[in-house]
């Protein structure tokens, strides 16, 4: 399609694709020993454990004033794990469509669909907590909003990371040169 015919959205998609491919080239050879299925699964499990910790911190915030301090170690674990998982799985979970082939698009769509369902279900927990809790306490609980916020943040993070986690878990080992 000629450039002058491209809509703003198409031009943005083309820009995203170029940027993605440039970054892919840059990160292609990073962490080579972590690209096996076994190691990728270790990262996925560690990330899932971090989410459990984050959610627990959210719950603890309801009871303890100093609960939010525990959020810091959770973040310190989350960022390196998430960045490593994105590098070793080639960022398939959020890659632009034009950078993927038909199988990758199919698998990515399936992973995103699962992630959406999980996010919707998980977000219901803090929603119910905030709605029911605010009614029961007349909105007077001092830490309820903070705790609910952390729980919602955790649920949203899980939803955002889940496609990459599913794809990293399912992808086979890199093909041996034949």
């Amino acid at each position, binding site marked *: 399609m000629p450039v002058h015919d491209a809509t703003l959205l198409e031009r943005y998609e083309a820009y995203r694709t170029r940027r993605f491919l440039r970054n892919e080239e840059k990160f292609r050879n990073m962490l080579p020993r972590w690209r096996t299925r076994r190691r990728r699964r270790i990262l996925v499990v560690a990330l899932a454990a971090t989410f459990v910790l984050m959610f627990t911190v959210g719950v603890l915030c309801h009871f303890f004033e100093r609960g939010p301090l525990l959020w810091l170690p959770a973040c310190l674990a989350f960022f390196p794990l998430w960045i490593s998982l994105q590098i070793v799985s080639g960022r398939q979970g959020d890659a632009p469509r034009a950078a993927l*082939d038909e199988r990758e698009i199919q698998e990515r769509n399936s992973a995103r669909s699962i992630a959406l369902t999980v996010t919707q279900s998980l977000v219901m927990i803090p929603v119910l907590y905030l709605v029911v809790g605010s009614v029961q306490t007349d909105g007077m609980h001092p830490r309820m909003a903070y705790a609910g916020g952390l729980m919602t943040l955790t649920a949203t993070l899980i939803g955002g990371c889940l496609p990459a986690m599913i794809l990293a878990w399912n992808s*086979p080992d890199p093909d041996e040169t034949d």
Partner: protein
Amino acid sequence: MSPVRRGETLPIHNRIRVLRAERGMSRAQLAELVEVNPQTVGALERGDHYPSLDLAFRICDVFGLPVEAVFSRTEFGPLSTEVYRIRTATEGRDAQ
């Protein structure tokens, strides 16, 4: 993975691995020619992914063969046996 939405999933067998080996072509080379990820070629060979018509035609173009020579609903026998059978049948007809 079948692209079909409902009903029984029918198998699509292929000869990609044999044809590739015959031509001394690596997965990465074939993947580059048909513009997919090398892991997708692996998935096709294992039967984990059924190709779209577009991809099937691209693969057939690389090997210079018709679709039915590369993809089939029934399992393929060894290529050498089939070639020998065809040759024997042709020679038999010629002799008559």
